[in-house]
């Protein structure tokens, strides 16, 4: 079975303006969303208390709210989680004292509202929240920096910048989605974003690898033509891998349970955006960065020459001529 016609070169660069426009709209839209709606930080980062309670029949939301109010827990939000039997209760304060147990406290407050089980209690103090936020940001920055250095060494600095540009594109749009859906930003959300980075980078590098190969081997002197060829030749792979990954992510989304629902929905968006950006954005960034085929060829030739010279020297040295 095959999806794409064998060896056909598609003119991606010819239609790039259309896709750039789509991507620009998504990108700007995401930034607008992020600066107006903003991100809804979950308790991992903002600190607070989250309790998950499961009833044996539909949860009495109003009764729960009334009881919490009466117990003096201010600003608690009570929402259904997954099904109408399960609720999450969330409020912004956290109790630092080891002496009083939050879960037991809530169980006492809700006593009499039906048969229930406290399934999960998360308490994050404000100090820990700050630390988690800081280390989360560090994780993103360090991984981007590491990638930048790696690609700059293995390819060329323009490839590295182009890859990072397309990563930032993906991260912003994914975060725009998170803002739009008002998904709680928690540690696993962060893991999802980093996975999106890793995944999309994979895609981009595979395209770039072909661009590099094209520059070295094809007779073509126009960058857009080389890019067209590279993207076309990797297209089946790009689509296939996106498909298998999407299969996995959708399975997680539908069957993985409520706890990884947000995680997998972010991944779905991330994989789609990542695939899109490696086809249209990453290569475009190369053009914007004024990547020059001639220079790159000259660089490679120079590198080759130096290497040869070195080998020659070594050979001469080993034979004892010098």
């Amino acid at each position: 079975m095959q999806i794409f016609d064998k060896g056909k070169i598609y003119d991606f660069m010819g239609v790039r303006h259309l896709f750039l426009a789509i991507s620009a709209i998504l990108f700007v839209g995401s930034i607008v969303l992020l600066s107006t709606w903003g991100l809804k930080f979950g308790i991992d980062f903002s600190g607070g208390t989250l309790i998950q309670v499961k009833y044996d029949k539909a949860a009495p939301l109003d009764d729960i709210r009334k009881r919490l109010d009466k117990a003096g827990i201010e600003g608690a939000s009570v929402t259904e989680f997954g099904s109408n039997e399960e609720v999450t209760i969330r409020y912004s304060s956290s109790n630092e004292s080891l002496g009083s147990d939050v879960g037991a406290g809530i169980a006492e407050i809700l006593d009499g509202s039906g048969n229930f089980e406290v399934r999960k209690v998360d308490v994050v103090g404000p100090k820990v929240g700050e630390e988690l936020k800081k280390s989360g940001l560090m994780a993103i920055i360090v991984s981007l920096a590491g990638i930048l250095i790696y690609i700059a060494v293995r390819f060329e600095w323009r490839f590295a910048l182009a890859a990072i540009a397309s990563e930032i594109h993906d991260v912003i749009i994914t975060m725009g989605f998170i803002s739009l859906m008002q998904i709680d930003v928690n540690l696993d959300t962060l893991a999802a974003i980093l996975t999106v980075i890793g995944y999309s980078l994979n895609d981009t590098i595979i395209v770039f690898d072909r661009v590099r190969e094209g520059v070295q081997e094809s007779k073509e002197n126009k960058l857009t033509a080389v890019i067209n060829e590279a993207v076309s030749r990797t297209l089946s792979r790009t689509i296939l891998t996106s498909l298998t990954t999407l299969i996995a992510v959708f399975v997680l989304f539908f069957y993985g349970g409520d706890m990884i629902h947000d995680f997998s929905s972010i991944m779905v968006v991330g994989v789609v955006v990542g695939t899109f950006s490696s086809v249209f954005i990453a290569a475009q960034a190369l053009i914007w960065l004024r990547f020059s085929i001639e220079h790159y060829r000259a660089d490679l030739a120079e590198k080759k020459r130096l290497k040869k010279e070195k080998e020659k020297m070594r050979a001469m040295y080993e034979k004892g001529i010098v």
Partner: protein
Amino acid sequence: MNFKLIVLIVTFIFSVVFSIPSFLQLEKGAKINLGLDLQGGLHMVLNVKLEEAISSKIKSVAASLSYSAKKDDLLYSNFAIHDKDFEFEILDPDEAPKFDAILAKIPGLNITKNGNTWIVSLTESEAAATKEYAIDQAVETIRNRIDQFGLSEPTVARQGKEDILVEIPGVKSAEDKQRAKDLIGSSAHLQLMAVDSKRQDRAQSMSDAEAAKYGDILLEDAKVEGYKYAINQIPVLDGNMIVDARVAFDPNNNQPIINFTLNSEGAAIFGDFTGANVGERLAIVLDNKVYSAPNINERIGGGSGQISGGFTPQEAHDVAIALRSGALLAPVVLGEERSIGPSLGAESIAQSTFALFLAGALVIIFMMVYYGLAGIIANIALIINILFLVAIMALFGATLTLPGMAGIVLTVGMAVDANVIINERIREALRQGNSVRVSIKKGYENAMSAIIDSNLTSLITSVALYAYGTGPVKGFAVTMGIGIIASMITAIVGTHGIFDFLTPNIEKSKNAKLWFGYKLEGSK
């Protein structure tokens, strides 16, 4: 047989052997640890209040200065203890050298003399060392306490500069959880202190400020709410001199009491003090509450005493554990708590395992349909890949968390990537009219740089995630990282071995459609 095939077979055998204990949940052998989010339990990050370790150290220096000064008959007044230092005034300047001598015996002190007023604080390095010691000691103490509590496989580890990570799997009921938290959190700071008999009568109406003027502090009674004691703020001795604590029962009323034993230094101080203060009252203070304040009838040698005071047997048991395992030099507060009920954990495992198998099956079918026999070869690599991942995680005792499970499912989707790249390259080479043998060789050669570059960059992200992530995110990074390495071994080396082994058959069959799921022009 070729070298690459042997690598694959060895990897397969290795993976099967070491993943069996995890899959079948055997008693013996290394298994993957299930994270608390999968098995249920209590996860806490405790912040250690290190500043209080400094003030408690200052107090104990003050106590030993006052003990030595009294022993040598040296006179001082206006003794006052603050958070980071204490001060006193010497009455006879001629005695200054003797005070110097006493203080010189205690290392790490900074002494500022302002006429006859001396201010004693810790040097910076001593303060840092005290903090360091306090957190190490807190980890040790909490570990001892949890061990004695009798819970299975708890983890107590230092995290960062001033945090302690505590994980207790299998804490199920709310009562158990509360008890564990009480035990960990009780600072169990035992002090023996002198009651200020001159002012005790007025203690109920005195203010804290007034008490401080006399060098006293007001402490509440543990049983009688609101009843206060005026107590000399310099303790007679500190709980770190306790060597043992046991629960016993008072023969008079059958109430549980705690007998404690002091080390030789403590015993000497205790003996001297009781000998010199017959008729006075000695307060037994636990965590700043007075449990009892008996009259001293005679000198108490031997260095043992008891705490009585309306404990339930379980409380007495837990307090004894806390005393035995040592006091916390600095109190701890809850920074983060995550507790997950066992039913939720089991549900998460069931759902994610199902997702794993479903995703695996779908990807396997897809690969077979698309690539034919080459797809089956990729699938073999995929299956070994997952077994290998499980085996490595088991061998390293890595913890599998819910995001980690998601990571494995994702690995299934992404693991075939290398083989997709290779197969596409093989098809491309075939299309250009190369022979099967050359196409396979070219396919692997051409695909290699892309595969290595893309895998190494993914590895960089997972290392960053591991380095800066905590808890479940770390677990996710581990599975991702191992998954990437596994797929490099199985998908690049392993499948190459299979292809090399089968090349003669592929050449003979001349059926590219069957082998590569792709019809060559001019072939059947």
